[in-house]
């Protein structure tokens, strides 16, 4: 039942939200019906709660984090739920008339219902994390509602401010809840409430309390977080009437009540909560008086009343809690009606500025009467509900003299009285300044009574004000008792709800407040002037906005500082951290037990000299680009020799061929690139880069050395022993490539193919022109295709293809294989492009290289898939020795087919890349 209850508003929201014109029923009607049905359901199922029952529903949701789908209906929840749904129904009704046709879209009601559901969920949650879910949802929904009039900057700012403050508080509260849950070991409210002093005695209690109060304070607009609330008045008035009187701002108060048994009872609680309440009470009351905006006045008054309730909770006395809860009800009722009245005035007169609004009584007497009653309740006039709870409040402040140190005991009653004086004064202003005080000034509209049904919600609420004020025991006592019992978690003390308690100090304080308020209001002109003369008005809003603004600015600053959008910086960071991390890891590690070192030989010394000199020369001469490429070629050649020397013929050949292809590649690019790199670096940067380079070099050298002296026992012995019997080849490297680790090779061919596709994609649409002259200003030589080159290249082609075939076929047993053969073919064909030019070469090599690559990959993959047919894993190879007449015995290996795929893909890629780049210049001439 509780699930149904909570879900009704959400279902309503979902129903209403997407409805534009399609929904026959007006959204307001749906929303109202939803709220009403929820209220009826609540009253129905909530009945046992009055007699002390607690309804619980539990369902697992995320057991790993302790989030369960559990609801709880106890007295406190019932009270709040009734307020939420009751006032909710009235607000929907009110909004139906308040909002213009244009505004009253389904969106509004959807947001309102969303908010209603969130609030309902919040007050009914049994699971603390679930409660946090709803808590944050209320912030989000209120963001949407406050920002509903999105075209005005006030609405946008107000919404964002509210979200910032309440969202921030939400995160603090979340932390508090998490810590509490961890301390208790459960997030179920029942467990937490049953944990006694566990939290309060924990060493994290102060932290929990502070975080908790930040959450409470932000939501319930307590000083110093109160400032968002007045700006939230940019919301449509029904929203204010709902959120800022009865519901959202009471969420924090609700929490104070909820966690009272767990967190209250300490000195810290007393000082912090009552201190916060007291300051809010006074500040709100004071500032309310000076607002010219009708809703502003109500907003600050709300702040003040919330402070009052907080103060009561802070006092920690049982009667104080009862008074607090009582005032929650009363404030909700009269403030909602006042907001609605203010909305009517705004709606009918076009302004909320009290300096313009005067003498409305004669234009709208009915409304005025209602507003005056509600305002009187706010002021604490007897026979109205506000009087009762205020009396209890005054009474409780007096009790304190036994609690606090003697010399300060007067502070609380004193402050309460002062606040009372101001409350009377601003209530008076609300009545006098708007409904009397002469004639209206420059009103945009001529005011008149609103539609009949718009007043009904106000009337209902005003009747409640009076009903509670006159017959408290009859109307409100059961609810109050059950709620208070839920808060206190212990038997309630005796308390009396009656208008007359005799002539006692609270009554005196009330009378002083009335009289003082009247005097204060009569001296308002002097007061306003004095208030305006206060040199600096601390605006919480400005402060918060500048805080947000400076956060944004700080963000930009840090972002600009760190993220320079400079590749050089990125590279420097990357390389520096690699070097640093490498150094940290190597530091202090001993070299492994050295194996016998290899004696130095002359060829290695000479080759090494050339290699090292070539590397350094490349770096030194990098500005002269052609020179640098030549130097790099030495390094490449020497690397190939090194591979050969250290027993890697396949590698030596691959390196040689790739080197040649790379030189062609880079020369192709260099034609378009500037031939010289301008000297670009400052000395400092140069020194820095050299230093990093040297450190990196040293680091890698040390790592290499420790690797080289490391005796190694590797898995390679398996490859050596299995190559022939298992893989059918004697060239172990090739067998690894096409068999043991054929999967790698397939991936590598794929990389090549993708690179080629990417290159083709980048070349397409590239508009680039080569220079007319070389970098020394000479025009290019004539004769594009020297005859000697052309002829020799053509001559070489068949020979190269034969060599390629030779290397391919023997690759399984001797140095060679698909890669190397593919590179040979690729280079031989590229040579034709160089010798005879793109056009002619393309005529003679007319196939689509991209397709060739695809075919290669498909053949390699297909060979691998072939093994599926025989029930083997992908890439399982087989081989057989076949004996034919004449030919004799030879080997057929499926790995050869795989290697053929590799071959084709490599040929295709090399041609795509080199010939594709070679085609760039062609385009220029065609343009």
């Amino acid at each position: 039942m509780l699930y149904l209850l909570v879900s009704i508003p959400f279902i309503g929201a979902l129903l209403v939200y997407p409805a534009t014109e399609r929904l026959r029923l007006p959204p307001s009607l749906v929303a109202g019906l939803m709220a009403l049905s929820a209220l009826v359901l609540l009253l129905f199922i909530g009945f046992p709660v009055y007699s002390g029952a607690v309804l619980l529903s539990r369902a697992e949701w995320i057991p790993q984090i302790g989030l369960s789908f559990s609801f709880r209906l106890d007295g406190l929840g019932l009270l709040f739920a009734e307020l939420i749904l009751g006032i909710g129904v009235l607000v929907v009704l009110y909004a139906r008339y308040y909002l213009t046709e244009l505004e009253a879209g389904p969106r509004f009601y959807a947001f309102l219902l969303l908010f209603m559901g969130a609030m309902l969920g919040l007050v009914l949650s049994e699971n603390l994390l679930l409660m946090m879910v709803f808590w944050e949802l209320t912030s989000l929904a209120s963001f949407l509602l406050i920002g509903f009039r999105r075209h005005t900057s006030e609405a946008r700012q107000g919404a964002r401010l509210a979200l910032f403050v309440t969202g921030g508080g939400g995160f603090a509260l979340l932390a508090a809840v998490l810590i509490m849950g961890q301390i208790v070991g459960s997030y179920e409210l029942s467990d937490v409430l049953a944990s006694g002093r566990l939290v309060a005695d924990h060493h994290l209690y102060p932290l929990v309390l502070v975080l908790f109060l930040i959450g409470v304070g932000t939501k319930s607009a307590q000083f110093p977080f109160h400032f968002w609330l007045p700006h939230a008045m940019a919301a449509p008035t029904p929203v204010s009437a709902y959120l800022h009187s009865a519901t959202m701002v009471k969420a924090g108060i609700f929490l104070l009540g909820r966690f009272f048994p767990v967190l209250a009872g300490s000195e810290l609680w007393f000082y912090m909560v009552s201190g916060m309440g007291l300051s809010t009470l006074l500040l709100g009351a004071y500032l309310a008086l000076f607002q010219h905006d009708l809703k502003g006045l109500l907003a600050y008054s709300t702040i003040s009343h919330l402070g009052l309730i907080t103060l009561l909770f802070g006092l920690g006395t049982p009667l104080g809690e009862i008074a607090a809860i009582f005032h929650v009800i009363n404030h909700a009722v009269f403030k909602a009606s006042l907001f609605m009245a203010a909305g009517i005035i705004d709606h009918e007169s076009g302004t909320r500025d009290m300096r313009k609004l005067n003498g409305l009584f004669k234009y709208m007497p009915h409304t005025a009467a209602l507003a005056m009653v509600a305002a009187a309740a706010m002021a604490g006039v007897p026979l109205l509900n506000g009087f009762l709870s205020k009396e209890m409040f005054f009474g409780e402040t007096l009790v304190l003299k036994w609690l606090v140190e003697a010399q300060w005991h007067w502070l609380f009653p004193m402050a309460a009285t002062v606040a009372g004086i101001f409350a009377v004064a601003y209530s008076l202003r609300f009545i006098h300044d708007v409904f009397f005080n002469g004639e209206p000034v420059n009103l945009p509209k001529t005011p008149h009574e609103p539609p009949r049904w718009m007043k009904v919600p106000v009337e209902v609420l005003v009747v409640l004000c009076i009903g509670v004020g006159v017959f408290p025991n009859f109307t409100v006592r059961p609810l109050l008792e059950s709620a208070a019992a839920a808060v206190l978690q212990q038997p309630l003390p005796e308390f009396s709800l009656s208008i007359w308690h005799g002539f006692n100090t609270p009554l005196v304080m009330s009378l002083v407040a009335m009289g003082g308020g009247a005097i204060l209001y009569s001296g308002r002109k002097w007061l306003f002037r004095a208030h305006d003369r206060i040199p600096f008005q601390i605006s919480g809003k400005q402060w918060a906005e500048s805080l947000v603004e400076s956060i944004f600015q700080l963000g930009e600053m840090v972002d600009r500082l760190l993220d320079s959008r400079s590749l050089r910086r990125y590279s420097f960071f990357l390389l520096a951290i690699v070097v640093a991390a490498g150094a940290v890891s190597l530091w202090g590690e001993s070299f492994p037990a050295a194996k016998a070192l290899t004696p130095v030989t002359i060829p290695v010394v000479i080759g090494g000299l050339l290699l090292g000199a070539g590397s350094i020369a490349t770096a030194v001469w990098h500005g002269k680009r052609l020179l640098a490429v030549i130097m790099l070629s030495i390094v490449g050649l020497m690397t190939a020799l090194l591979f050969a020397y250290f027993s890697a013929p396949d590698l030596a050949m691959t390196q040689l061929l790739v080197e040649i292809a790379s030189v062609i590649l880079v020369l192709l690019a260099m034609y378009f690139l500037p031939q010289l790199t301008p000297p670009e670096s400052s000395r400092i940067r140069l020194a820095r880069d050299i230093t990093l380079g040297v450190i990196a070099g040293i680091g890698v050298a040390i790592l290499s050395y420790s690797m080289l002296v490391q005796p190694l026992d590797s898995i390679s012995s398996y490859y050596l022993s299995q190559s022939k019997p298992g893989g059918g080849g004697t060239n172990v490297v090739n067998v690894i490539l096409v068999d043991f680790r054929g999967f790698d090779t397939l991936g590598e061919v794929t990389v090549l193919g993708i690179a080629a596709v990417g290159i083709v994609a980048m070349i397409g649409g590239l508009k680039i022109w080569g220079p007319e002259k070389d970098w020394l200003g000479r025009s290019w030589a004539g004769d594009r295709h020297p005859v000697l080159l052309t002829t020799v290249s053509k001559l070489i082609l068949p020979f190269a293809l034969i060599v390629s075939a030779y290397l391919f076929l023997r690759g399984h047993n001797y140095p060679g294989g698909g890669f190397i053969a593919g590179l040979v073919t690729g280079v031989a064909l590229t040579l034709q492009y160089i010798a005879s030019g793109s056009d002619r070469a393309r005529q003679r090599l007319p196939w689509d290289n991209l397709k060739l690559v695809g075919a290669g990959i498909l053949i390699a993959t297909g060979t691998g898939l072939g093994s599926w047919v025989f029930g083997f894993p992908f890439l399982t190879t087989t081989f057989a020795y076949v004996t034919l007449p004449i030919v004799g015995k030879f080997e057929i290996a499926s790995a050869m087919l795989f290697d053929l795929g590799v071959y084709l893909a490599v040929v295709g890629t090399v041609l795509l890349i080199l010939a594709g780049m070679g085609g760039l210049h062609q385009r220029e001439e065609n343009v």
Partner: protein
Amino acid sequence: MLSVVISIAMVLLGIALLLNAWRLFRGPDATDRILALDTLYINSAALIILYGVDIGRADFFAAALLIALFGFVSTMALAKFLLRGDIIE
């Protein structure tokens, strides 16, 4: 005898490589450097073959064959770059 001679031959080739490198680093013109690189390629082929004789295995011959076949391609590309800028026209 053979191994001594091979060692001598290797030293001779090594010196040849160093001389090539001298021209390579010295220049003066880009053509000189490219020529030196070309020579370096050919001498490398010689070195590889000699190495094969030294260890008594023909496994490295293919590498020398590739240098003989394609060693001129880099040279040719570099020269064509000097002449025409665009090496594939």
